[in-house]
């Protein structure tokens, strides 16, 4: 083996070593949460890297509580509603912003960009009043409404980017045939926009599923809470004796679906995330 080949081999080994470090760093906390959740409470306080046996008692305890299942149901309802509303309002707005040139378009786009960068605390007191006036306090519908503040601007922005890339001829043909704008959207653009809508829908779903501040502030009782709040509020006998086993079981339960989604749709997620930032 000559020197050149040796250098090449060393580089290769170095590359794989670095990749291994990155992999461990990215995956280890989740792995450790899974391990902890599968331990019986008697073994919980011996830090170990491997699992000797599997116990499901923590899962039984968490899933046995009606309130946690209820929180999962609430989270699913809220997130799906948010995705539906954001896509419905987003696709129509994206058509207007992406395909039609009119006065004030740039202003609207900049406003949307501004809203997407909003600190949520800045609207907390005003939004609290709106939600109470609409009688939506302690109600998942109030969360659906408030979540549009961060899902809608993002959805509009990304869908507008995608909408602009569609070829001109399609729309011209539709107009030649006398199609109204609504028909143009539903019959011509919608079929082509499905991939983009799946991507933005997925990102909106994850954002809504993970939201904490509004969910904590706008709900009061256990039966109206979403998953992040339910997990944050799991408590034990005192502040210093948190039930770590059940907390980890709950965490793994709500994270596994997300991790599976990410594994399946990683290409889409990446393209959606970067479309919002790089191209925009």
């Amino acid at each position, binding site marked *: 083996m000559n020197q050149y080949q040796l250098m090449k081999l060393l580089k290769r080994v170095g590359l794989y070593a670095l990749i291994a470090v990155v992999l461990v760093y990215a995956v280890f906390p*989740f792995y450790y949460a899974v391990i902890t959740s599968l331990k019986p409470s008697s073994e919980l306080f011996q830090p170990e890297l491997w699992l000797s046996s599997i116990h499901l008692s923590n899962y039984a305890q968490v899933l046995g509580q009606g309130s946690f299942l209820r929180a999962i149901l609430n989270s699913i309802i809220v997130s799906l509603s948010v995705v539906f509303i954001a896509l419905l309002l987003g696709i129509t707005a994206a058509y207007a912003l992406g395909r039609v040139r009119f006065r004030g378009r740039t202003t609207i786009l900049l406003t949307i960009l501004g809203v997407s960068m909003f*600190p949520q605390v800045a*609207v907390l007191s005003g939004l609290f009043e709106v939600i109470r006036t609409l009688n939506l306090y302690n109600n998942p519908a109030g969360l659906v409404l408030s979540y549009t503040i961060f899902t809608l601007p993002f959805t509009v922005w990304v869908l507008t980017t995608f909408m602009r890339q569609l070829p*001109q001829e399609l729309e011209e043909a539709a107009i030649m045939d006398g199609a109204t704008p609504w028909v143009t959207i539903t019959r011509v653009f919608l079929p082509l926009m499905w991939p983009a809508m799946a991507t933005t829908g997925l990102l909106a779903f994850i954002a809504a599923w993970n939201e904490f501040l509004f969910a904590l502030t706008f709900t009061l009782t256990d039966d109206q809470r979403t998953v992040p709040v339910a997990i944050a509020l799991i408590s034990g006998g005192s502040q210093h004796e948190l039930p770590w086993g059940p907390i980890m079981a709950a965490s793994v339960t709500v994270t596994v679906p*997300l991790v599976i989604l990410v594994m399946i749709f990683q290409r889409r997620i990446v393209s959606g995330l970067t479309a919002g*930032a790089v191209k925009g």
Partner: protein
Amino acid sequence: MTQSATQGAPREGGAALASGRRSTKVRRQRVRAAWIFLAPMLVTLALVAGWPLLRTFYFSFTDASLSDTGGAAFIGFENYLVYANGVWYGLLTDPVWWQSVWNTFYFSIVSVSLEVVFGTVVALLLNAEFKGRMLVRAAVLIPWAIPTIVSAKMWAWMLNDQFGIINHLLMAMGLIDAPLAWTANADLSMWAVIIVDVWKTTPFVALLVLAGLQMLPKDCYEAAEVDGISPVKVFFRVTLPLVTPTLLVAVIFRLLDALRVFDVIYVLTSNSTNTMTMSIYARQQLVQFQDVGYGSAASTMLFFIIALAVVIYLYLGRRQLGVDQ
């Protein structure tokens, strides 16, 4: 015409249609339809963002409480600054508020800097050719997908002072003699928060930078390789200048996120003043102390401080880039 419209100006979309050739009737119909389509989105945003923001500004000049926001009395600048009985009162004189402002900036600058460095390293790695690249890329996304609350809880457990694996490993390696109280210790708790945030958001930066790297022209690198220039030099002379625009975008996204940080700190260290940020402070006043007037004053300050930080950053970024877009 169609060719030039699709190739020359893809961003314009329907522009070519609207201007010229077609009859003005079609054009007017399209513009009217555009506004009708925009209306639901604009109304929703006005309801959840515009109006609440104005109400927050208004509340900051009143003595509103959480139980009765409607019957608030106007009290001018008293929530911000007031002189009574020879002493200054108000938000601007509260040392805890200024501590929160300092904490917010310290947290944001340190964690975003670390994320950009780590994110760039990870992106360069993922840009290299190796077996199982897709799998690694998916694995790197895991921290991003995990809810912030869950990641904070996971790390709180790993950083637990008595039973945490981190202390256990550090002691096994002989790096520390006694367990560290990561989340309780005044000097360490901010670092605990930063560790969790960096872990959670580095993937986002890495993906943005990776997307930027993949758009770079290949011929520069081929030329550099032919000339036998060292990879380190290539990185600093070619890659870094070319991905700088992407990095600036990544930084602004992350900076805006970091300046409004709430979840991770709320779960890890609760209302401890060592890690209290502007968002934690404002929410504590608003919800826990039910003082909507004072809390709104803090929210208003937060809004303008963040806006100012963004404007300064954009100004500096633009100057550094030497472009005027």
